[in-house]
């Protein structure tokens, strides 16, 4: 059965350093550093008090007026997804049936697939409700059942369901095609885009809004990553703290953000003279059966994922011109990831230019993969590899080629790879589009 070819026609990112891919990519080129002391909440009780946070951000600026009220029932993860979708759709030139104007796509032909994290309940809101139900300083579940729970808004649960990212996006854009929500930690974004590409390729719909978004900029995010012992604990030089693959790497930094892409049937995109950033030529997934041995990182799923993506693209490793990896900044994880990348790519593994993007933004978790896909698509578009941020002296135990100079160079194929605590992994190959 022949599959349709699928291209990327819209990029939308919301991340520390940029709202919109142009702004984000320019920030990368300028070597900006956006990890800062956390001000979204009082982090003074935590060993780690820095993060890549979105300042002055609200989805209100990205939704139709009629939808502004709904922002109240959006967890921050949802707000990021909604904003990124708006940016991606506008960037694509498609007028979705939910937007003003004459739609250029049928509702049933527009799908949605978004990678999401475990969304934490707002602690202030929950605590205010819980503290109405105490007896002698302890939680009184009977008082809670009787009356206390009434202090939570009726829609409380719907703020936190992972599929509410896709739910709001599909409502705003009237996207009635296939819909899905992938929850596989840090590789959720690549997996979601991969699934969306497959759906378009097999003809289940003509285009999808796909990617991932997450915010761990909250006490639970700091706590859980802290328990995993993954976090940087030196708070003094925030901008320099996140150092993927650098000799000085000392942990990861929580961030928040996400990316949504418009992936589209190639013929359709060419028919409407869309700007085509790249063609998705390869996708693969894999997993590491040691995923339950956390906190140790287990990126070995990358080997099968990259192998499958290369086979899918019918490419040899030496045809990959740029690699955008996960790069969490945790020394043991970076080293293990580098070993897997080299095993998957053979000789090319030590030579291929590597761009870890998280040095600028912090670790975006479920948002990371799709932001990296957008960065990869932009690198192809502009034929440039931005210098890595906070990786000037590569850890010899990683042994990767991480350029610390921005290089204008012919780029044809870019490989984006990611893996999750828990063992899932994904890889995608983008090719420069030539009409």
């Amino acid at each position, binding site marked *: 059965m022949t599959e349709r070819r699928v291209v990327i026609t819209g990029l939308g990112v919301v991340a520390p350093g940029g709202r919109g891919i142009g702004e984000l990519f320019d920030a990368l080129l300028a070597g900006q550093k956006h990890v800062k002391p956390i001000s979204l909440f*009082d*982090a*003074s*009780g*935590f060993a780690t008090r820095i993060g890549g946070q979105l300042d002055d951000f609200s989805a209100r600026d990205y939704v139709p007026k009629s939808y502004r009220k709904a922002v109240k029932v959006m967890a921050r993860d949802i707000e990021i997804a909604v904003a990124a979708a708006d940016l991606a759709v506008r960037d694509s030139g498609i007028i979705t049936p939910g937007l003003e104007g004459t739609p250029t796509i049928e509702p*049933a032909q527009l799908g949605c697939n978004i990678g*999401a994290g*475990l969304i934490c309940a707002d*602690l*202030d809101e929950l*605590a*205010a409700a*819980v*503290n109405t139900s105490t007896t002698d*300083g*302890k939680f009184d*579940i*009977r008082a*809670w*059942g009787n009356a206390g*729970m009434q202090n939570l808004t*009726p*829609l*409380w*649960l719907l703020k936190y*369901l*992972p*599929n*509410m990212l896709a739910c709001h996006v*599909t409502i705003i854009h*009237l*996207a*009635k095609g*296939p*819909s899905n*929500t992938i*929850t*596989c*930690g840090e590789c959720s974004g690549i997996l979601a885009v991969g699934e969306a590409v497959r759906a378009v390729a097999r003809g289940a719909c003509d285009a999808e809004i796909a990617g991932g978004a997450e915010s761990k900029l909250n*006490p639970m995010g*700091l*706590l*859980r990553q*802290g*328990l*995993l012992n993954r976090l940087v604990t030196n708070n003094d030089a925030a901008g320099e703290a996140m150092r993927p693959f650098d000799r000085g790497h000392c942990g990861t930094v929580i961030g928040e953000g996400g990316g949504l892409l418009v992936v589209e049937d190639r013929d359709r995109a060419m028919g409407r003279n869309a700007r085509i950033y790249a063609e998705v030529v390869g996708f*693969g*997934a*894999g*997993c590491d*059966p040691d*995923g*339950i041995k956390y906190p140790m990182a287990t990126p070995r799923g990358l080997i*099968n*994922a990259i192998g*499958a993506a290369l086979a899918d693209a019918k490419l040899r490793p030496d045809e990959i011109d740029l690699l955008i990896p996960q790069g969490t900044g945790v020394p043991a994880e970076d080293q293990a990831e580098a070993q897997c990348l080299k095993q998957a790519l053979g000789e090319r593994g030590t030579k291929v230019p590597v761009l870890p993007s998280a040095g600028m933004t912090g670790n975006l978790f479920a948002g990371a993969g799709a932001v990296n896909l957008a960065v990869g698509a932009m690198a192809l578009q502009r034929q440039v590899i931005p210098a890595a941020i906070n990786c000037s002296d590569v850890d010899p135990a990683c042994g990767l080629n991480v350029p610390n100079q921005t290089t204008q160079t012919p780029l044809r194929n870019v490989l984006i790879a990611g893996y999750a*605590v*828990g*063992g*899932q992994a994904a890889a995608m190959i983008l090719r420069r589009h030539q009409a």
Partner: protein
Amino acid sequence: MRRRVVITGMGCVTPLGHDVETLWQALLQGKSGISKTEIFDASTFPSTFSAQVKNYRMPEHLAKRHEHAGRHTSFALGAAEQAWKQSGLGESKAYNPDRTGIYMGSGEGNLDFDNFTSMLIDAWKDGKLDTAQWGKLAFERLSLHREQEQEANMVVAHLAAEFGIRGPAFNVLTACAASTQAIGEATMILRRGDADVVMAGGAHSMIHPYGVTGFSRLTALSRNNDDIPGASRPFDLTRDGFVLGEGSSVLILEEFESAKKRGAKMLAEIVGYGSSADAFRITDQDPDGAGAASGMNAALADAGIGPGEVDYISAHGTGTKQNDQVETRGMIAVFGPEMKIPISSIKSMVGHLIAAAGATELVSCVLAIRDQIVPPTANRNTPDPECPLDYVPLVARKAKVETCMKNSFGFGGQNDSLIVRRVRE
């Protein structure tokens, strides 16, 4: 010719039995798995009952290897082992872990409720939460494993570890549609040739104080505290909400030719899958059933069959006023107002297993094909004029069943439909 996908193993851990046959017999007899909630003190909650998995313990060898597994993960491991055993893959030379994937629709793991809640109280100062104090307490009271096991990809991680799986691995969490969707997407992966075997299904437990709180605030749960076994009443005029359940079902899906080659017993074939979004409202379903219908139509088109070829529909049938009416309208839109296809909702007996619901209901479809009998909709005593179809009320019914449709709908407007059929050579 596209690759065909068959089911070669099934396993269940549910409120009506910790294996497939026990569940099936209970369903055919119209038994109820619903009782007073014992997992926590729900005596003052609007709903005091639920469909709990009772007296379940993971087999010793599994418990040893998965000591940190959360409640729903322990269900999933048990269900997966049953399915694995039935498939015979463990003993087969044909088993290749690199060509085997996992596609689960599993939910988040259980919260460390007592510790988590106590911190919200102990760090509460002058009418607000002292986040700095909360942070300090958190590292004293919460533990690595209890927190990490809540991540929604951990069921997949445990299954990969137990069976040594190294192929494509996904978790979908589209609320109540998740495991139907997981099985559908797994089918697509097998068809395309990205794997030869996929372990697919769902696992979930939301029977904890905040889970029940969330659904109570949405007024989604039945409050029929006076008639607990009769509380789940899909398609009945007097229905007043769903009954929260928990559990897991896991299926082994396999590419037809390789299953045939290794002599596997093929239980049914998955021939159609459709997914769509209502894109309507965050709280309500599209009232005319158009979203539901579009998922069903997509599945029929994918299977290449007409509505007349469907012999049985396993409904989502939650027992909420809205769902059952909208679902009925959706079915009428697809099958016509004169449709005579028997429809039932086993949620009337086993409860609503949320992310694990669809997979569990699909298991009942496969058994309906095997035994030529369809399970009833229990408690469906009083017809609802808005729901005028044949819901197989109260008593199981012998029927010719070759092809079944399984529908699932999730909060957020998610619609997923599957079509399974007796395996034809």
